[in-house]
């Protein structure tokens, strides 16, 4: 596709369950970012990938959060034992290099 694709677009799950969010960046984009946006808040940085490696994981809020990227393309963000405060829109962005340039539509995660 032409843009950054994220799936699912919406996810509702019960507290304590694990969730996996997917990001398919623009082909050829080596830089990939995950952000989250809680209600009324700015975008909160989670993790940055350059290729398959993650030189900056400083934004992951706890060890329940992890992310990986394989083949320098698709990335998955996994949240284990979800909590209500994890409810947010999770955004992925990719770029040929440097700053986040192309964002996806996001995954709206709701924890019941």
């Amino acid at each position: 596709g032409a843009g950054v694709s994220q799936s699912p677009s919406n996810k509702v799950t019960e507290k304590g369950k694990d969730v996996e969010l997917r990001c398919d960046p623009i082909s050829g984009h080596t830089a990939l970012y995950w952000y989250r946006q809680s209600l009324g808040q700015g975008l909160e940085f989670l993790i940055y990938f350059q290729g398959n490696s993650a030189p900056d994981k400083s934004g992951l809020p706890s060890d329940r959060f992890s992310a990986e990227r394989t083949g320098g393309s698709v990335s998955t963000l996994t949240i284990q034992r979800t909590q209500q405060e994890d409810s947010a829109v999770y955004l992925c962005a990719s770029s040929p290099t440097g700053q986040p340039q192309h964002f996806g539509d996001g995954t709206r995660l709701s924890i019941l």
Partner: protein
Amino acid sequence: AQSVSQHNHHVILSEAASLELGCNYSYGGTVNLFWYVQYPGQHLQLLLKYFSGDPLVKGIKGFEAEFIKSKFSFNLRKPSVQWSDTAEYFCAVKPATSGTYKYIFGTGTRLKVLA
């Protein structure tokens, strides 16, 4: 901690009015600065950026932003807005430090332009 403040959360203007959206950041070192825009129903996208040089940066669609280092500000301006400028605008800052990729975003300003 580094932060970005956008003091205007909602702005309503009539077409042809001038626009200035405020952005202030807290970081003592060298920074890279950005404005992003999200039009209704569309993705967030980069509007303009500043790395170094001329502090007045021109972006797409007639937008510009001025970096004033002494004020830690990077305000977005447009001399005459159009209805199509209705969108949410986000300011972002990144410390120009090697090894950090943490772009810090403000909470956004929703602009509504009345036709």
